Each structure stands twice: as C-alpha cells, then as structure tokens.
C-alpha cells in the first residue's frame, strides 16, 4: 500500500526533530570548541567561521593536568571493563549451565543488591578507604565500577550463553574437555558478542562516572569529568572555549566507541529486557 505524502512528510519531520534533539547539543559543543572566542557568544550561533585551535592550545598550556586525568580515566575504564567482563562471563556461565539452591540464591542476591543506590555506600567506604590508605588510587574506582556493573554483566552473559546449545558442551565433555577448556575454547568465543556488549556498558559508565570519582579521588587518580566540572565551577568566570575543548576531548573517543559498537550495545540492551 502506498503512503500519501503528508504521512511521509510528518515522518521526515519527526526524524529531523529527534536528530536535532540528540545530536544538536553534541555538535554545538564540538563546533564551538573550534570557534574564536567572540563567535562563541554570537547569536544566532554561527555555522560558518574561521576554525581555530586557540582553546586547545590554552588547554595544553594552562591545564596540563587535564591530559593526565584523561589517561587516568582511560586506565581505570579499561581495568574496570576487564574485571567486570571476566567476573561476568564466569558467573554467567554458571547461571546458564548449572542449577541448585546456592546458584539460585546467588542469582537472586545479585539482582536484589543492584537496587541499592551507590550513594549509600560512600558513607562507610570513605573512612574505610582512608584507613586502608587506598583513597585516591585507581584500585578503589576500578573495584567500585566493576561492582556496579557485574550484576547486569552476568545477566547479559547468561542470556547469551543460554543461546549456545548445551549439546556442544556435552560433546566437548565426552571428548575429555575440562570445565576451563569448555569455557575458554567453546563458550567464550561463542558468547563474544555478549562480552562486547557488557564491555560497552561498563566502559562508558567508568569513563563518564562522576559521583565516586568526586568522592574518592583528589589528585593522583582524578578522572577527566572531575576536571571538567572544576572548569565549569570556576570562580573567576567560565572560559567557555576552554571548557568546550576539554569536553570535546573527553566525549569524542567514547562517542566514536559507542557508535562503532552500537550493534553490540543494542543487542545487549535488548538481551537484558526483551528476553530477560
């Protein structure tokens, strides 16, 4: 059945609107980071302008710390991702293939404990980490980020591993493969898309997280979002160009990462909802 043109026009309009809503603010920040300062304040926002790197130059010269915190963010996000995915694939495999009271209790505990708002645990953890002298280290953030994504990671991995026929494990077992071999050689390659999906969730979260980083870091392990918030809260007036340059540097890598892996992200989100 052919559609009439008003329907098609309406649909195109909706698409345009949502593209402007979702992509507009990002494009504005990225473009503005290359605008000479006066253009940042022009209204309506200029689209054609002489691009400049002056704000990036200021960022490098006046905020060398920013790049150190960006490196911290990267290291913390990678370590948290590795830890989460490793713990999740182990747990997801057991939840998918084994039954028993202890297993069911463990799965229930995992889902239930996720309800707890993260802010609740900073109260006891703050003095505890000070006492242990691990405040302001990578380890604290890595562990915390992994903790808050290991539940969803395990559930996503369980869903993916459920999709691998158990006949394959049985055949491997008859051929003399042990548990570890089955997991490494059979399950992990076939569940790789699920592992990537879980990795995207936790990586994006760790790269962007604010609350824990704000509470548990001061200098050594400080992450990029914290520096950006400091630039925004500057008492001497906000240097918008600098702020846009920092924000662009922080957001471009992770946005490209999400777009490149969007297939896995979408599959992971739906695995957690439609099937679960």
């Amino acid at each position, binding site marked *: 059945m052919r559609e009439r043109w008003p329907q098609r026009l309406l*649909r*195109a309009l909706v*698409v345009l609107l*949502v*593209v402007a809503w*979702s*992509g507009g603010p*990002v494009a*504005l920040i990225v473009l*503005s980071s290359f605008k000479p300062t006066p253009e940042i*304040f022009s*209204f309506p*926002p200029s689209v054609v302008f002489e691009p400049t790197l002056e704000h990036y130059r200021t960022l490098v010269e006046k905020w060398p710390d920013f790049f150190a915190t960006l490196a911290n963010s990267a290291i913390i996000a990678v370590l948290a991702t590795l830890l989460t995915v490793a*713990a*999740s694939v182990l*747990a997801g495999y*057991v939840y998918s*293939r*084994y*039954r028993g009271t*202890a*297993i069911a209790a*463990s799965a229930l*505990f*995992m889902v239930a404990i996720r*309800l*707890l*708002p*993260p*802010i*609740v*645990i*900073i*109260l*006891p*953890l703050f003095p*505890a980490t000070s006492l242990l002298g691990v405040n302001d280290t990578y380890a604290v953030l890595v562990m915390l980020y*992994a*903790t808050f994504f*290991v539940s969803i990671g395990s559930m996503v991995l369980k869903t993916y591993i459920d999709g691998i026929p158990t006949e394959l494990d049985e055949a491997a077992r008859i051929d003399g493969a042990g548990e570890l071999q089955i997991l490494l050689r059979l399950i992990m390659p076939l569940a790789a898309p699920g592992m990537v999906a879980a990795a995207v969730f936790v990586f*994006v979260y760790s790269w*962007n*997280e*604010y609350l824990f980083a704000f509470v548990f870091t001061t200098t050594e392990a400080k992450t990029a*979002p914290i520096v*950006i*918030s400091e630039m*925004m*809260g500057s008492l001497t007036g906000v240097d918008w160009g600098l*702020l846009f340059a920092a924000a662009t540097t*922080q*957001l471009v890598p992770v*946005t490209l990462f999400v*777009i490149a892996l969007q297939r896995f*992200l*979408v599959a992971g*989100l*739906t695995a957690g*909802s*439609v099937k679960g």
Partner: protein
Amino acid sequence: MRRFGLPQLLMLAPAQLLLVAFIAIPSVYVFWLSFTESSYGKEAVFVGLANYAGIWEDDAFWRALRNTLLVINVIVYGELLLSLALAAVFVQGIPFRGLVLAIILMPYAISEVVAVVMWKYMLDPNIGSIARALAALGLPDFAWATNPTHGLVLVCIISIWLHLPFTFIIVYAAMLAVPKELYEAAKIDGANGWQRFRHITVPGILGAVLVALIFRYILSFRLFSEVWLLTAGGPARQTEVLAVYLYKQAFTYANFGMGAATGWIMVVISGLVAAVYVVLLQRKGFRRDA
C-alpha cells in the same frame, strides 16, 4: 542441567566477592550507622531512632523527597512517551536508518558533567542560544539558576536527554519483535491504526516496557550529578533531591547518622518501587505467555 560443585562456586566467587565487599557489608554498616550519632573523628554513639525522627521533622527532607518523586516520574514517563512515539514512527521505516540510530544513541556516550556543560551553555541567559531565542520570541526568562521550579525542569530535560537512548532502544526493539502478520491480519479485519496499536503493539511490548520502567525508576532514583553540578540543591535548598540531601547531611553538615538514615530510607523506597513492578511484570508476563 548439571549439578554444581566447588569449581562452580569458585567461578561465582569474583562477582559475589565484589558485591559483598563493596555493597552488602557497607550497607549493613550504614544500617548500624543510621542508629548512631557520628561525625569526622568521633566515636559513633547509639541514639536509637533519633536520626529517623530528625529526618521526619526536617522540612528539607520532605522537599527533597517531593522533588525526587516529581522529577523521576517526569523523567521516566517523559522518556517512555517520547520513546513510544518515536518507535512507532521508526518501525514504519525511515530514511538513513543506521545514521539516524547512531545519532540518537550519542547521548548514551556523554557524561553527566558534559551534558550539564551543554545545557548550561545553551540556556545561559546572556550567551545561550536557546535562552536568547526564547527572549527573542518574547517569552519569559527560563531562570533555572534562581527559580527552583525552572531548575528542576532543567534537571528533567538533561536527564531525559541523557537517557532517552536507553529507553528508546528497548521500546523500539520490542516493537520490531511484534510479528508483522498480526498487523496484516488486523488490517484485513478492518482495524484502524489506533486499534492496531492498542490491541497488537501494546500487549506485544508491555513486558519490555515494564522492564525499561523498572530499570529507569531504580536508576533515576539515584539522581545526583545533574542536580549537584547544576544547582547544588540551591537556591536555599529548594532543588535538593534525596541523593543530594544525603550527601549534604553526611559531608557538608558532617552528620553521618542522618546521612545513613537517609540512605536506608532510599533503599526501602527503591525496594518498594521495584517490588510493585516485579509483581506487575510477572502478572503481565504470564498472561502474555499464555
């Protein structure tokens, strides 16, 4: 299905240890803390329910609770309605689907801090393009920094902007999964667009929508960064939400007991919300499978 043994328990151990060490034990400790009075460098003294009583009588708490409930309902249902409308358009097929989806997903990758930077810039009364466009249209100022209602509206806008991708993907995937034959059959039977939506799409996606709702309720209940970075709860504590109230009790006023009690109130409310939805979900789930 196989019976488990020690190796399987060891495989569960890393995930369980993280949850026990960083969530379970600290939260039990917070529970104890909520019955004590303590502060930096002071021994905790048992005070019974005094903290809970103190919170009960604190106007700032009730305002934070009211703000939280208002804001999360606007966020969660706003996202849901937008997602339903968008998904209904998208399932009919749209041009440049891959590109459009990539752009819709973009906010998922953006940190709360950067999102606040964006919206602060666009809505700055002096330099913001949206603020100046509103002024040019002769509309009253959107005074988010001084007017608490406007501040909370901006918190809702930023939150919806950040989390629309999550809700949209779940709803859209669920709509795509509804069998096409059902629509064809309904068309032959003479059902109109609304009837098809009401009797085929809605029952088909209900399970996924409820899951998305639970997730978003629980996650948005934690709302902290957007408020903290935008207004820090001001002016005059008018825009505080529960997480900000907790943070201030504990770290600004150095009253750990009150902070802990607020924490447990948050835990109980989250639990109740989740329980209601899990019950709903199971009921609908069974009906759908039947």
